[in-house]
């Protein structure tokens, strides 16, 4: 049996705001392809103020899907749409005192239903932007799609590489066989064969920059991604550079955003390409990455 928190059980056994909401003017129907669960979120929004007066849900799903739905409706009631959209899947999980790693997708489904319902209210069409695969690394909740895409994007060839880039396999290591299988598959597509003893990707030779040049380069890269982050209401600042480790601060909407890890990964990739060396980007404030590492 799953190790559900008391809060999850409470919201499952006595779900809040369950059932049809009469007079709803924003409805989001989403499902999770990974487990078959599905959720309808209904909002009653006051047009003048954009405030969510009431929120109800109907869920076809397991205990944690129902609890996540219930928690979500409680969290967004009384908020404006813009405030509500800041609720991340991690916030939903935190509200429930945590979810088992296999069940995090239930909270993702909640967040997606919210986006879909708001889009429906605003007369927009919502489309999903990420795909979820089978969970491979249970220690860090990394799925197969994430691993496969990272292997492709970065030309990885060893389990050690995958761990360095995604953290998958960095814990108890019992998923290494699963990671190897994904590597074998992608390597075959690249026309290579997987070598079990394969060494981690060679670190690129130092690019021959002075410290100052290097830091300026780093700042230039961060500057180039800043407009994107600002568009989403967030920002990034450089805190320190210690050898191969670059410390940054994610601020505004980026802090604690469910996509923080992915965003940082993208920036890290860009930095590596520009600096032509292997570096690691580390957020200094508590964010998704550091939380996951706890």
């Amino acid at each position, binding site marked *: *049996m*799953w190790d559900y928190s008391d809060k999850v*059980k409470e919201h*499952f*056994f006595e*779900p809040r705001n*369950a*059932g*049809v909401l009469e007079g709803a003017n924003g409805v989001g*129907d*989403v*499902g*999770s*392809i*990974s*487990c*078959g*669960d*599905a*959720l*309808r979120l209904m909002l009653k929004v006051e047009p003048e103020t954009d405030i969510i007066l009431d929120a109800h*849900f*109907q*869920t*076809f*799903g*397991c*205990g*944690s*899907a*129902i609890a996540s739905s219930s928690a979500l409706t409680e969290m967004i009631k009384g908020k404006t749409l813009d405030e509500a959209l800041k609720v991340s899947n991690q916030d939903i999980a935190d509200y429930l005192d945590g979810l088992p790693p*296999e*069940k995090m997708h239930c909270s993702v*489904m909640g967040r*997606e239903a919210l986006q*879909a319902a708001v889009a429906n209210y605003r007369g927009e069409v*919502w*489309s*999903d932007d*990420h*795909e*979820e695969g*089978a*969970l491979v690394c249970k220690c860090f909740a990394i799925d197969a799609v994430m691993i496969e895409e990272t292997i492709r994007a970065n030309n990885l060839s060893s389990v050690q590489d995958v761990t360095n880039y995604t953290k998958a396999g960095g814990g108890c290591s019992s998923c290494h066989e699963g990671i190897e299988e994904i590597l074998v598959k992608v390597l075959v597509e690249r026309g290579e064969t997987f070598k079990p003893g394969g060494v981690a990707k060679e670190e690129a030779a130092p690019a021959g920059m002075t410290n100052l040049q290097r830091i300026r380069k780093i700042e230039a890269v961060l500057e180039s991604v800043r407009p994107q982050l600002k568009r989403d209401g967030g920002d990034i600042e450089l805190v320190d550079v210690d050898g191969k480790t670059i410390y940054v601060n994610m601020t505004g909407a980026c802090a604690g955003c469910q996509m923080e890890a992915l965003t940082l990964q993208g920036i890290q990739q860009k930095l590596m390409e520009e600096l032509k060396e292997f570096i690691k980007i580390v957020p200094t404030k508590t964010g998704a990455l550091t939380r996951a590492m706890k």
Partner: protein
Amino acid sequence: MTGIYLDNNATTRVDQAVVEAMLPYFTEQFGNPSSMHSFGNKVGLAIKKARMQVQELLGAEHDSEIIFTSCGTESDSTAILSALKAQPERKEIITTTVEHPAVLTLCTWLEKDGYKVHYLSVDDKGRLDMDEYKKLLTDQVAVVSVMWANNETGTFFPVVEMAELAHAAGAMFHTDAVQAVGKVPMSLKDTRIDMLSVSGHKLHAPKGVGVLYLKRGVRFRPLLRGGHQERGRRAGTENTTSIVGLGKAAEMALEAMEFENTEVARLRDKLETAILAKVPRSFVTGDPSNRLPNTSNIAFEFIEGEAILLLLNKFGIAASSGSACTSGSLEPSHVMRAMGIPYTAAHGTVRFSLSRYSTEDEVDRVIQVVPEIIAQLRKLSPYWEGDGPAAEPEKAFAPTYA
């Protein structure tokens, strides 16, 4: 309130008499049966007795056909790998899409080593197409591995007939009978079944002990080599206490065989009939006319199994589900998918599996509770409206999947 345990296909309670039979072998008779001194002597005799008790339950011709192992999975792996090792010129395996992972996962693993595995499909009641099977039986097939009874639906496969056909094609025949042993009368000596797996904890013996039945004369290559235990066919010091327990449990299962097929079946039928009558949009999966006497697998449409189990558990009722969420995997049961059960029903399947310790009161209580639980969850379901499913449920709720 004491719990109501209707998950006996997962595991069973060890019978008190089994525990008592085992106890002396922890402290008084702790010797190694291989030793020459008297500490080991009586233990050897106890194992011999257990072997004969299992022999009788299975209807095996010789007691030496019983090899004690650590579990059903070990027996499955040993049987299949032995057949491949013994016939290196044959590179094909026939099994079914609805086998237990102990067989399926091994087979998909063997595919990577170049073996060709044929997975027999099933119809909507979980039945095999024997013509398809006959066509696949060529001189390339090393082993056929087909379960006796399905763990989720209880549906029987015609293993005795299939073993005959395999034998005619020169292939070995193995059956995973962990659910059937103790519930189905067997006379293996009258069949062409070469190998059969037993799991102790499915028949009120402890966990961690199993049996591989190996018909005399069947070519065999051990999985574990080392000591001479089990006539060199399964090395490793015997799990003496559990073997003694399994022997006792086998003896008791044989005595209870008729009871299982009359009284347990009656309670199962009562449970099933009442639930189906009280709960709209529910149906039995598998083949109700040809299945284990203790198993009922019911699909409740438009709700999800884990949620049902959590609510049942609140009432002290233990059952299991084929939903994706209960398994830790993300897919609903491969057995339900193989039978083509739509996923709005496959996710809501609940397996009730009784034992000879299940009582009328317990069954009555479950009959009382289940309809309430189902109604409560359907109130939350987007496919449901009022007292029935939404008109055209698949259209009324068509979520964007991400």
